[in-house]
């Protein structure tokens, strides 16, 4: 089955399933609002939703850019400075394993109600998959290619750009599949904890006001954002790795 058909089926099935459940069990609308109510909320308050979505997206993308910059830079440094990986491993393990919800509270106290805690949390959520994958990719280069480069007297830059980076790209793309969607979830959770703007904030506000229609609307937007992030990575992967498809066909 073509992937787009599977997505289409899912997108049609979800509201159908939703309507069936409402038709069968008649839950009160404050527990499970009907789709048309959620769509009406989305249409009526589109300005509000757009504003908060924009805030979340800016936070996620900024954090993600910072995360990529640091993680890719560090991965490259690991390859060329032997002791650096050993030195940083305990730090990366801590970053990966300390619950970011706890760190978030500390960040709010120390940094206040600014975009910075949100960006830092996105970095914490997305940093490790990028670092681990790119480092693995840069190391996975075939030794025979490195030998070929050495006998051709290739410069360090040539070896990196033409061989190592080419070999690492599939790993880097795989990291995006996890981390890019993670950046949106990270931003929302950060907002959920402390912000006064963004989709996470809308969730908290809707909960406190028992606005399930609003909650469902936010859930729809957040899910759509994450799915779009994932699909955009897949699209880039398909463009870059046309050769893989050609080989398999």
């Amino acid at each position, binding site marked *: 089955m073509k992937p787009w058909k599977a997505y289409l089926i899912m997108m049609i099935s979800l509201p159908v399933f939703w309507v069936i459940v409402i038709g069968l069990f008649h839950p009160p609308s404050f527990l499970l609002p009907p789709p048309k109510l959620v769509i009406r909320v989305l249409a009526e308050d589109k300005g509000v939703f757009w504003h908060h979505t924009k805030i979340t997206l800016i936070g996620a993308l900024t954090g993600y850019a910072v995360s990529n910059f640091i993680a890719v830079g560090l991965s490259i440094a690991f390859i060329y400075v032997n002791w650096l990986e050993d030195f940083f491993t305990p730090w990366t393990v801590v970053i990966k394993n300390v619950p970011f919800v706890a760190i978030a509270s500390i960040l709010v106290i120390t940094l206040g109600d600014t975009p910075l805690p949100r960006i830092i949390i996105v970095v914490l959520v997305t940093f490790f998959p990028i670092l681990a994958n790119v480092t693995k990719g840069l190391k996975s280069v075939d030794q025979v290619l490195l*030998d070929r480069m050495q006998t051709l007297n290739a410069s360090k830059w040539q070896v990196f750009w033409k061989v190592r980076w080419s070999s690492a790209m599939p790993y880097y793309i795989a990291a995006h599949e996890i981390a890019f969607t993670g950046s949106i979830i990270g931003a929302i959770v950060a907002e959920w904890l402390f912000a006064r703007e963004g989709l996470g904030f809308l969730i908290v506000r809707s909960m406190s006001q028992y606005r399930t229609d609003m909650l469902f609307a936010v859930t729809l937007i957040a899910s759509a954002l994450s799915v779009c992030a994932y699909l955009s990575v897949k699209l880039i992967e398909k463009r870059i790795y046309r050769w893989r498809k050609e080989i398999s066909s």
Partner: protein
Amino acid sequence: MTAIMLTAVHKWFGSVHALCNINLKVREGEFVSLIGPSGCGKTTLLRIVAGLEKPSNGEVETFGYPPLELCKRHEIGVAFQKPALLASRTALNNVMLTLEITGRKNGAKSPQEILNDFGLGEFLNSYPGQLSGGMEQRVNIACAMIHNPKILLMDEPFGALDMMTRDRLSEWFEKKVLFNSNKTVLFITHSVPEAIFHSDRVIVLSPTPGEIYMEFTINLPRPRNRMTRVSDCFLEYERKIREVLYEMVNGG
């Protein structure tokens, strides 16, 4: 002129004595094959000549320079046993990679011409994963010699292929690559007929530690072709070298 000279070369890997007192002189334009059982240090010897390993003792010169100096001058081409190709580059772009690195515009031929010569004209834009093992090896050899190096080092380039493809590629190599070229070639193989077919000299290495056990000068007319393989002279060389190999492994 002497192209490759090894004087009293030893190589140790920890406590393992891989190569012992290797003295070898290869003239410019000469084709020398190294043959011997697994673990006799053939690949190590080739890697030392390529500048990929340093000898523990002894001297190595390539056209009067240390191997690394000749690598800097882009005068050494290596065809590894496993094709050294980037999966994300087409056959043509893999060959061009050598020129990109060395900064040479072209060798004797352009990448398209060399791949055409190698019978890959229709596969210029194919990726390594789309090529057969034999085709990949031809691209691998093209990558090793597109910049027209003086020395070509080949580590069992046809080792992973079936016998028919191997014979076909050997004949192609003799006709398209070696004939009328003045390349100095150091060739590693496990196949006695392959060594005789290409070589001016066949050197038999003994295992653990790798030492030069015996040397055969092959006086067969060139160009060599399918008929060469079944000539009495060829078969006689094959018998002699096999006898030496059996004697060396079994102790007579």
